[in-house]
């Protein structure tokens, strides 16, 4: 069995975890809210991306002779559309819900969030949106090359996921570390009151926070939809809890921790499935890893004391 192949597959899986979980950890960092509805944003992102893809593709076909090229172009148009819609959706979730529940008992935010998640899923399942069936998202590798080495092979779709993830992480890194509002975000996640006192408009920062995080979740939805060639209304179910495992594992609110935790989890899952076989379902593995880690390091991998 090829260890290198499993590792490279695991890194792709990790990329999808990273994109979903970063938004969650960013929200937790500032608001201390468990944003379950984030998984709804993820599914909506996939839905919007697919919708845009199917809408745009016929327009690309007449100009581009090659159907493959048309599909690739349609994908690269659908991805930013899905990301922007998801970002706006996330910002609205804050402005319409958490802004009012923040500062009250965390249970209220959590309950509102779970309710919203269910609402999004039920809406997506309506026949005029996604309907009850899985829909294919046949964008393939969107023009990415296939990478073959003697030890492992990376499919074009996998290259696409790795590539988009790296670019998005770089953008988020620059925004958070090299811009004024990014500095404000860091301050607000450490001490929102004090950040406000030095003039950081905390509302702006939080809206940005939701926008960026939800944008990443939307991108994750699109990429996973293409990877599995499947978009469906309940695709947020597993991420809704697995992303929390990642976030807690990484140390609540820590972006680098989330990245490390995603990799740890994806690699563990892959190798447990590969070596321990039918011992336990893979989602149980995630929680097992979490429990083991929290026993020895209660604040997560890179959490603050």
């Amino acid at each position, binding site marked *: 069995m090829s260890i290198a192949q499993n590792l490279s597959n695991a890194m792709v899986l990790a990329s999808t975890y990273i994109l979903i979980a970063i938004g969650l950890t960013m929200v937790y960092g500032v608001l201390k809210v468990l944003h379950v509805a984030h998984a709804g944003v993820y599914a909506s992102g996939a839905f919007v991306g697919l919708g845009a893809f199917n809408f745009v593709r016929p327009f690309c076909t007449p100009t581009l002779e090659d159907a493959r090229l048309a599909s690739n172009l349609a994908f690269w148009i659908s991805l930013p559309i899905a990301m922007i819609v998801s970002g706006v959706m996330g910002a609205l979730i804050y402005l319409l819900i958490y802004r009012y529940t923040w500062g009250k008992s965390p249970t209220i935010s959590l309950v509102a969030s779970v309710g919203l998640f269910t609402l999004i899923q039920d809406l997506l399942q309506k026949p005029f949106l996604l309907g009850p069936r899985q829909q294919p998202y046949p964008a393939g590798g969107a023009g990415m090359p296939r990478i073959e080495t003697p030890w492992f092979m990376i499919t074009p779709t996998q290259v696409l996921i790795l590539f988009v993830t790296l670019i998005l992480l770089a953008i988020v890194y620059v925004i958070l570390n090299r811009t004024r509002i990014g500095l404000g975000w860091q301050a607000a996640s450490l001490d929102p009151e004090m950040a406000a006192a030095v003039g950081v408009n905390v509302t702006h920062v939080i809206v940005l926070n939701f926008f960026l995080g939800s944008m990443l979740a939307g991108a994750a939805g699109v990429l996973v939809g293409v990877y599995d060639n499947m978009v469906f209304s309940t695709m947020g179910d597993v991420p809704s809890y697995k992303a929390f495992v990642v976030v807690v594992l990484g140390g609540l609110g820590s972006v680098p921790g989330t990245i490390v935790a995603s990799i740890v989890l994806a690699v563990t899952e892959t190798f447990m*499935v590969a070596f321990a076989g039918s011992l336990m379902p893979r989602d149980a593995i995630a929680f097992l890893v979490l429990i083991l880690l929290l026993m020895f390091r209660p604040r997560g991998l890179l959490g603050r004391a």
Partner: protein
Amino acid sequence: MKKFAMLAWLVALAVLVVSCAPAPTPVPPTKAPEPTKAPEPTKAPEATKPPSAGPIKIGFFSPLTGPTAADGQSAFNSAKLAVKLINDAGGINGAPLQLINYDDAGKPDQAASVARKLIESDKVVAAISGAYSGPTRAAAPVFQQAGMVMLSAYAIHPEITKVGDKIFRIGTLADVQGKVGAELVAKNLKAKKVAILTIDNDYGVSLTAGFKAHALKVGLEIIFEQKYSFGEKDFRPIIEKIKAANPDVVYATGYYAEASTLVSQAKDAGLKAQIVGQEGYDSPQFIKLAGANSEGVIITTDLNRDSKEAMTQKFLTEYKKAYNEDADMVGASAFDAVQVLAYAMKTGGTTTDGIIKALKGLKDFKDCATGPFLRYTADRELVRPVSSQIVKGGAFHLYQEFTDPAVTTP
């Protein structure tokens, strides 16, 4: 902002209501045989009932929400189609059929409470499960205790019919279908080494059991076996292992969503072994999602789209006409459940005893999409041919029909 907190709680409340609906109405098992129902079986068969009587209510449940909603919708649509065709042709000896339908959300507990509702509030005369094995197993005892016939359309777990003498099956029992799978792998594909992948639920485990039991007899060597969870999206680590084991055939149980993911990832990873599936793959969705990767996949199933039988073709065209999509195995089975129940009520009347008697007397029944149905065994399993299909040119086509009683008799 007190207003908003209120709203949040309202949302939460709504969620609770939605997720619990219909509210379970616990009935102590001792009370379950409804006193009002008790006298009915003693009545004489009502075949002579005047045609002017009100509609005959039959119960139906399937998952219309949740991850298996697509199958539930297919089953429900097909059942409705069957009812419509029957009523257009004059109903049951003049009385129209009425389908009372509930959503079980794919959850066993909800199926059980839906069953009680059908019996107690809706007073149906018999019921059909358009649900998966888990929910069907939960509903069967409720109908059995209430003394009411239930037909399982496509749930194939062996325990379902073992619940009691009121529970009948339409679909091919898992043991039989597993057996046919092994037969196909050994005889048609002439394979020796088999890897088995099992979806970890009632459906998958019972199929694998049937396959393994017969595999030994036909000289197959099982060189690899692993389970996976419902909804699995990443088969890559397992595929790496299967590649290393190098089998001739992969016998993989699952539904079309997992199956399309599996065959696509297997293709990506360069796995050469033939993949053999079962009726869970049997949906246009499988071909739609897996695309070209589905080509050449062989499955065992109940629905033979190339069948020359009139009713099969009628079902396929009428379904397409009514719902503007291609029918699947799940729908065909639900359609047949209504057809068989209607036949039983026409010949035996609408009492439980009458229906059971008629079902036991069923012979070479051809008014169905997945037939012909030869007869019911003493264990209320259908003796019927089992089809196998291969994906060719983006559609399921007949691969081989299995009629050998040694293999197909439950």
